[in-house]
């Protein structure tokens, strides 16, 4: 309600920067109308105790199902935040939902996933005139997103799946998903959602390919570890190619110099998470040896973001709100370039709500360094202003 910008009309949003989990949950729970809420999404900063949150939710939410995950940052009605507990309440007037908890991701079992998803999907009755979509929250360190999301794409051909991998600040230690008020690791939560609102899914990034290609010559695909690039130790070769000393490699460098995979005119980012001591590179998305990759470089961020978030339908000039999954590496780059304020302004203006991920899923693909969003529009064409 600042700067003349109104918030979304069809969801309720609350955030809390309270130091203690109990207080924070109490703060955000106040915004929830217990009777008219279909479900709630919560994105958790890594400073809060998960057990306390779970306990507090139990106390406050009672019958309202709560889903969500840990995050590497939040996108609140004020823009970027690092330690805010963000809550989005979806009213049952516009939304309904059926959750599937997928536990024991590693090792990945196609049949277990299929059984769980198909059972729920078949029971989820379709309501005439409503649109379907699915939201996926996955353990961001499970390294199983690629298999999982492509499996879901196969199982739910009619339903677009949008996902974000749970984060852990910049620690890359442990991530959790929240289902029915409980936190799970090595797990994923799939929410089958029907909405009376018009919706539009999208994704974008801000990278262009350079002419520099590279070949992974030795890797551990399971662990997303690359030992050699171009037959040389991976970290050192990467440093040589991006033109910085081996010792200077950092998440910021990785954020700015992603590695891309080319397919039929499209480029997909394979983000580097870290460089190990034995000169291996760990990736945040699936890799394989023998893969030819292209070094990317960043495009101007602000304008591409604004362009990417400009969404409209035949009836509406702008969305009521956008649910956004924004890669943590994007955020790192924004911070490094000191663009936090303008980016937050754009988010605010576009009414983006969401969190910073360790990976994004869209159209059956697990990606890095992208923004995946779902824009929701008023079905009557009313402007939310």
């Amino acid at each position, binding site marked *: 309600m600042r700067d003349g910008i109104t918030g979304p009309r069809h969801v309720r949003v609350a955030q809390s920067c309270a130091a203690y989990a109990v207080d924070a949950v109490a703060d955000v729970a106040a915004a929830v109308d217990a009777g008219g809420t279909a479900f709630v999404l919560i994105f958790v900063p890594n400073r809060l105790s998960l057990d306390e949150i779970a306990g507090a939710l139990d106390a406050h939410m009672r019958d309202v199902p709560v889903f969500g995950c840990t995050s590497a940052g939040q996108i609140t009605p004020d823009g970027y935040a690092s330690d805010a507990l963000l809550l989005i309440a979806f009213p049952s007037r516009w939304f309904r939902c059926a959750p599937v908890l997928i536990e024991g991701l590693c090792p990945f079992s*196609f049949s277990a996933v299929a059984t769980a998803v198909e059972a729920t999907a078949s029971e989820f009755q379709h309501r005439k005139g409503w649109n379907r979509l699915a939201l996926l929250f996955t353990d961001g360190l499970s*390294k*199983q997103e*690629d*298999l999982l*999301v*492509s*499996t879901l*794409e196969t199982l739910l051909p009619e339903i677009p799946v949008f996902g974000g991998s749970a984060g852990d600040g910049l620690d890359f230690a442990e991530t959790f998903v929240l289902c029915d008020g409980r936190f799970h690791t090595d797990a994923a939560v799939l929410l089958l959602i029907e909405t009376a609102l018009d919706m539009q899914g999208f994704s974008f990034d801000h990278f262009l390919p350079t*002419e*520099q*290609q*590279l*070949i*992974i*010559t*030795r890797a551990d*695909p*399971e662990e*997303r570890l690359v030992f*050699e690039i*171009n*037959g*040389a130790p991976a970290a050192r*070769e990467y440093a*040589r*190619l991006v033109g910085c000393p081996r010792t200077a490699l950092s998440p910021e460098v990785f954020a700015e110099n992603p590695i891309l*995979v080319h*397919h*039929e*005119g*499209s480029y*997909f980012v394979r983000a580097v998470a870290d460089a190990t001591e034995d000169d291996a590179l760990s990736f945040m*998305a*699936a*890799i*394989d*040896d*023998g*893969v*030819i990759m292209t070094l990317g470089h960043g495009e101007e961020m602000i304008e591409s973001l604004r362009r990417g978030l400009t969404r409209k339908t035949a009836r509406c000039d702008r969305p009521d709100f956008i649910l956004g999954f924004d890669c943590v590496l994007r955020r790192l780059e924004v911070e490094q370039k000191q663009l936090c304020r303008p980016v937050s302004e754009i988010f605010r203006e576009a009414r983006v709500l969401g969190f910073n991920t360790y990976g994004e899923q869209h*159209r*059956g*693909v*697990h990606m890095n360094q992208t923004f995946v969003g779902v824009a929701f529009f008023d079905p009557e064409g009313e402007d939310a202003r």
Partner: protein
Amino acid sequence: MNLIDPDAPTEEQLARQDRIIAALMRRADRQNKMNLSAYGAFQSAIELQAQVAARTRDLEEAATELEIVRGDRARTQRNLHDTLSVMQEGFALFTDGHLNVCNQLFRTVLPDIANRIVTGLTLDGYFDLMVRSRHLVSTDHKIHHPASQLKKTPDNSVAMSLMIELAGDIWYQLGLQRTSRENVVLLLTEITPLVRQNRSERKTLIDQQADYLQAVFETMTAGVCTFSPEGRLMMQNRQFRKLLGVPLAELQPGTTPERLLAYMQTHGLVRDDALLEVANWQQQITQGGWLRRVRHGRGRMLDVQVNGLPDGGFLVELKDVTLESRATEMLENRVLERTAELTRANERLTEQFEEKARVEEELRLAKERAEAAVSSKTRFLAAASHDLLQPINAAKLLISTLQEAAQGSHLLPMVDRLHRAFTSTEQLLHALLDISRLSSADPDAVTATEVDLAALMEGVFADQLPLSEFRNVRLDVVPCRLVVRSDPVYLQRSVQNLVVNAIQYTEAGGRVLLGARRRGSTVVLEVRDTGIGIDHADQKRIFEEFARAGNAGPGTGMGLGLSVVDRTCRHLGHALSLRSAPGRGSVFSIEMERVGNSQARVDPATRRQRAADTPFDHTVLVIENDAEVLFATRQRLERWGARVLGVPSTPAARRSLDDTGVVPDIVLADYHLDGDDTGLAAVAALRDATGLHLPAILITADRSENLRRMAAREDMMVISKPVKLSRLRPLIDWAIQMQKGGARVG
């Protein structure tokens, strides 16, 4: 691209290359297998995503296009409706034969059927409604199955156009046009103002034309009157009344020609029955008009012209031609007078012409008589000469024999003189014969053929060599290879006469030269001498008969030679000329047509000239009816060494052959034998009897070409009388030689 660090050691670079290749190989290998790895899942997903993206793009494009099309269509529909409603014409579009859309005006043109014109109405249905409408008065032609008529019509052409009249003098034009395969447009255009205006204009025009016509009629200089098809008078003009002399009261519209004529008759206005042939008028009009000049009662002449009119009526036109006809009469009379004068002049001319013709005829007869007289004289002369030659021939042969017998005796000089006297006589007779021939009207007198001058000149030379030697004059001939067109006998005779003449008029020790040369397309033969020459005064006279130059010495002949030359040249068209100076000599020239490509014939007699000394061991059959000549010839031949059989006729020759069984080597036959018998017949009979192609020589005084040709056909040689012994012997030798050689058998 810089895949491998160029700063690395070479071995390291190579090792890295190997690793790259190995990795790519592994990757390529895996690519062909089902891959359930995370990366495989990613790859499948992006593959799918690319496909979906493509589909989505297509779908979006299609949707956009559809939207545009829908918009266009809606707009078009809206525009159509707008356009139709503001149109000034009734408009209806029939699609597939059913009414698709029409405007308000179209509906309300015929108000009583307005509410029945609804979408889906067929074209034929509309016309049915229209025809039954109370408001429809008429159409300019029948409406007949418009729908089926349309089928025959190509696109974009008018299938039907008709005018319809509605109640209250309202007019519409109805146009039916096919605009495409399924669309037909029907247009109703109001043309009421047009029709009304047209109508009023036409009416005005008709009135104006009538006035105009009357005015033109009245001012015409000819008298004009028109009648209706029924023969009723319609219009006439002032001139018509004036010419006809009929008062206006009698020329009221409706009057018939009969009545008009009746009036004219009673008032004595008709002097010509032609005018009364009214019955014929009508008939003749249909055959293309009628024109007659008639005499009018008041002394006037009128040209009456009647022509048909398009409506079946007719127009009578009168022209006053009184003056014209008077002028014509006068002219005609004058022409008649002139014609009579001319006829008389012509008769006089004819009489004169006939008189002239009669005189001409008399002249012609006189000429014929004169010619006949000349001809008979010539014939007589020819016959006389011929008869005279016979005894002289015989005498010459005898003298010749006598000369040889008297060799060495005191009688020889006398015999020689006798010989010369006879030779002169013979020459004189020959000249007379020639002149008589050349004087006769006989076209056969001379015949121009190709003549080899070399042979001719050689012959003359040989003949006259003795004379020249006797007179001690040197005779030379310049050889040549020219052929001319001339008569061989008379040319030879002419040349000979000139040479003889030259020798005679040249004193001993002088020269005579005979030669010929080309001059363009002609040949000039010249006889030059170094003689006494001819006085200028005598140069023309010398060619006349019996003329001799004033300085001619005694014993030089009778002067007939040059006359022969002159006549020959005139007959043959040769140019004869003379250049002479007294005391220095003369040149006689004959210019003749040259024959270009002919080869000179070789005269066998000339060729065999020098064979006189060879033995003459032949059996010769001589056929000659003149006993004297036969005797003389026998004597001569026997002296040469021949065995001679002498007979006077063909039967005798046959008998001799039968009796003796001796086949002669050669036959010498006189042409003229007793009665109808001829040498030709004799030779033919002998050849027939022996079955051999006996060589034969015909001896004759007849020099006609006709005979020459006849002899040539029978393969006989001809030798002229009197026979020159110098030529006879080689000729006999040659003929026998030829026969033996078999060259001319057949």
